[in-house]
């Protein structure tokens, strides 16, 4: 058992290298967003150590920079991270039923899109040590990337900061585009979401709505409509 733990841990380390590199680049941008929200480098690192969620943290920083209240930030956090509810359900099916509680608590803390994607891709049940291998590199990369982004974001030349600023959005694209290639409904839904987001930003009246509330509203409206009009068939959720 200990030997298989070690084997899985090492495999996790190896598979986690590209994730950790990507996390460092993306969290660097996140650090810049944190600075704009008035965070110190240490505070931004603590945030990344405790939350480990790109979209959630980014949304939080954006709202706080806009002076949003605690309730709006918490609500946004719940929406931005709602997908983890489903991933958490899916991951629970990957664990052997006798997996002790402390493994479940730890896996839940580090349930990110990328760790989840790799973890559910193993055949049969998941050995938590595989995920711990990925986390050992990815989590520090995430926290330190945020720290250095907040610390040095304003020191770097503006063209480098501009270039790094798109990495977060590129990461979002890397998450949403590949499944849309296989699923036409998803493809259309993503295009409609982007169009709606654009229109909400320029049309009279609705453009008065704050960006956080806009994201919450559009997510509930469009996901709800898609769920009713195009209910998914079994097992599609396990592929994401």
């Amino acid at each position, binding site marked *: 058992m200990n030997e298989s733990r070690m084997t899985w841990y090492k495999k996790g380390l190896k598979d986690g290298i590209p994730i950790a590199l*990507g996390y460092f680049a993306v969290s660097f941008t996140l650090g810049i967003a944190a600075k704009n929200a008035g965070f110190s480098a240490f505070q931004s690192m603590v945030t990344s150590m405790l939350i480990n969620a790109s979209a959630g943290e*980014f949304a939080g920083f954006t709202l706080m920079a806009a002076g949003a209240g605690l309730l709006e930030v918490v609500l946004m956090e719940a929406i931005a991270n709602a997908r983890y509810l489903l991933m958490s359900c899916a991951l629970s099916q990957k664990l052997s039923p006798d997996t002790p509680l402390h493994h*479940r608590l730890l896996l839940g803390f580090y*349930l990110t899109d990328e760790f989840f994607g790799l973890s559910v891709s193993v055949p049969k049940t998941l050995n938590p040590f595989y995920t711990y291998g990925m986390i050992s590199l990815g989590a520090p990369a995430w926290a330190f990337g945020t720290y250095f982004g907040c610390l040095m974001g304003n020191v770097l030349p503006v063209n480098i900061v501009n270039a790094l600023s798109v990495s977060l959005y590129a990461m979002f*694209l890397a998450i949403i585009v590949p499944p849309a290639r296989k699923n036409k409904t998803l493809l259309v839904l993503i295009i409609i979401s982007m169009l709606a987001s654009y229109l909400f930003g320029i049309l009279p009246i609705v453009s008065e709505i704050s960006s956080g509330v806009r994201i919450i509203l559009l997510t509930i409206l469009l996901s709800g409509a898609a769920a009713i009009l195009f209910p998914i068939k079994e097992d599609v959720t396990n592929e994401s």
Partner: protein
Amino acid sequence: MNLNVYVYIAAMALVTYLIRVLPLTLIRKEIKNTTIRSFLYYVPYVTLAVMTFPAILDATGSIYSAWAALIIGILLAWRGKSLFQVALFSCIIVFVLELFIC
């Protein structure tokens, strides 16, 4: 932002952790309701799409480099490139274009 920053961080962390850990620890059976499953399935895509566009267009120094990053990102992601490659090449295209534009 009147409250202490750490109150915000703690609240965000608590909400995020509860969402992630509760199903993993409490629900050992699969969710059967198709509408709820479908809703949860679609949520990440809509949220991330809404957050990406049009915000990405304001992220760089020029709207042309931003469009280029968006298109490169979509193309590479469509071809199944890794998270790291998609992020890297989107950054590079912005950097290179802005050398010429600005």
